[in-house]
């Protein structure tokens, strides 16, 4: 049996991800769809700093110290790095439930709700969990078909559920969530420092040379908004809250629950948010998808091999509490043992190893190559 040669273009998982994100650099960059305000941010920062470097730094370097522009450059580089990191990274998007999981959850909900009379609205889909002795309600997301983990929320702009959702920031062109919140905070903090720095040396320059102070005014207004934002997020971090929770008033008010995630200690809260572990992305954007005509899910598990090879299979019926009797509902086509003809299944089985392939059960490379 000769080796099966695959020469088609590789499809990566990011191309099939639902949601309204845009991807660049073959899945390495992930942003929201509307990027206009992000370009404005870039323009403002780069523009302001260029003016500063062009018009004020030569004078300051000569008359005061050359360290002034050097420090400004370092700060500028840090600001840009944090901005790009915030904008381009996955904020902590939760992938949508695959059909089996969605069915399983539906069964659980139906079992929990019991019989709903026709014409009556079914009760809202809420799960109560106890976290640190507080009752927290988990809401069901109808788009993603999952019960959202605590602190997760669905972003309507990006059409994704995001873990530890803070807010959708048009200035960075992305959601701010678990994975990129610290970069966002460092961006606002360093931008505040940069703005204060430029503002201070503007004033020095104006005083020393008696030049036009128009530039100073621009800096003044920018300064207050950016410093204000930094102050607000510092307050949120110290209480271990998200913007989303603050706006909704989840933990404020007498009759409401207290924040179960706060350590009641300013230092500990800051450390958790800023020095916590760097969470990996669960999206696997650059993983390679199965080359298959009927493939619709970025699924590397066994089920997809079997699913893809049975063209007329019924939808996978997931676990139903009382009635499951082990009847096989999904059958693999006649592909089985080695040493036999596998031409029917070989094009469907092929898959090159995904770069991030931690799972041993991922369907491996074609094995008939050596037969």
């Amino acid at each position: 049996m000769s080796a099966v040669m695959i020469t088609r273009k590789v499809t990566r998982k990011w191309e099939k991800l639902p949601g309204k994100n845009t991807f660049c650099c073959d899945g390495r960059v992930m942003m929201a769809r509307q990027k206009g305000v992000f370009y404005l941010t870039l323009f403002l920062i780069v523009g302001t700093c260029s003016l500063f470097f062009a018009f004020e730094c030569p004078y300051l370097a000569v008359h005061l110290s050359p360290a002034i522009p050097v420090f400004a450059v370092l700060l500028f580089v840090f600001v840009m790095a944090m901005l790009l990191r915030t904008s381009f990274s996955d904020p902590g998007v939760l992938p949508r439930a695959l059909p089996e999981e969605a069915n399983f959850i539906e069964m659980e909900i139906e079992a929990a709700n019991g019989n709903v009379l026709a014409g009556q609205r079914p009760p809202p889909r809420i799960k109560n969990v106890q976290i640190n002795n507080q009752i927290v309600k988990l809401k069901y997301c109808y788009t993603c078909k999952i019960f959202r983990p605590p602190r997760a929320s669905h972003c309507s702009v990006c059409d994704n559920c995001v873990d530890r959702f803070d807010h959708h920031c048009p200035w960075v062109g992305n959601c701010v969530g678990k994975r990129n919140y610290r970069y966002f905070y460092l961006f606002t903090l360093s931008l505040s420092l940069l703005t204060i720095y430029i503002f201070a040396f503007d004033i020095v320059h104006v005083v020393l040379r008696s030049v036009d102070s128009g530039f100073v005014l621009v800096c003044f207004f920018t300064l207050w908004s950016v410093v204000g934002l930094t102050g607000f997020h510092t307050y949120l971090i110290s209480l271990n809250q998200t913007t989303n929770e603050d706006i909704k008033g989840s933990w404020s008010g007498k009759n409401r629950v207290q924040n179960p995630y706060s350590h009641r200690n300013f230092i500990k809260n800051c450390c958790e948010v800023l020095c916590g572990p760097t969470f990996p992305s669960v999206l696997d954007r650059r993983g390679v998808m199965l080359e298959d005509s009927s493939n619709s899910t970025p699924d590397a598990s066994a089920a997809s091999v079997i699913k893809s090879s049975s063209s007329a299979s019924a939808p996978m019926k997931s676990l139903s509490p009382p009635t499951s009797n082990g009847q096989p509902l999904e059958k693999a086509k006649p592909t089985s043992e080695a040493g036999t003809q596998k031409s029917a299944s070989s094009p469907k089985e092929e898959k090159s190893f995904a770069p991030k392939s931690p799972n041993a059960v991922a369907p491996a490379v074609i094995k008939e190559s050596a037969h």
Partner: protein
Amino acid sequence: MSRVMLIDRLLVIDQLCSVAGSRLSRTFHNLQELRHSASLANKVFIQRDYTDGTICKFQTKFPSELDSRIERTLFEDTVKTLNNYYAEAEKIGGQSYVEGCLACLTVYLIFLCIETSYEKVLKKISRYIQDQNEKVYGPRGLLITDPIERGMRVIEISVYEDRGSSGSSSGSSTTSSSGR
């Protein structure tokens, strides 16, 4: 008894494959053949346990659907070990501070060169799951999917039935007879 036959079949096939000089590891063959000669009957989803907050932790409650397939203690051991791995990955302590500060000083470029401690633990987890699938779950006709493939929301356990034992699974011209 049928499961023993299944494993026998797997070993024979595996020998053929090794002789043929396939580059794949033995374990992949075993697991893939399990899938081919068995049919997927069910999937069980182990949900997250949020009682300790947002850290990644799975419920150790034994699902009734696996009652006849695997011993309770083995299942609980697997889930507890996974929970321990995740707790290790998400631990906030000296090492995470050092990593965070160092990364911040290098403007997070250091992550282009080294992998984060979380990623290291994820690799350990996938090796552990592979190991468990080979030794414990595979022989019982079960298959664990790494939670990272499901967004760390659930542990998906696929339940397979031996095709030879289910009467309606015809069409497989190469399956050896189940009447032995």
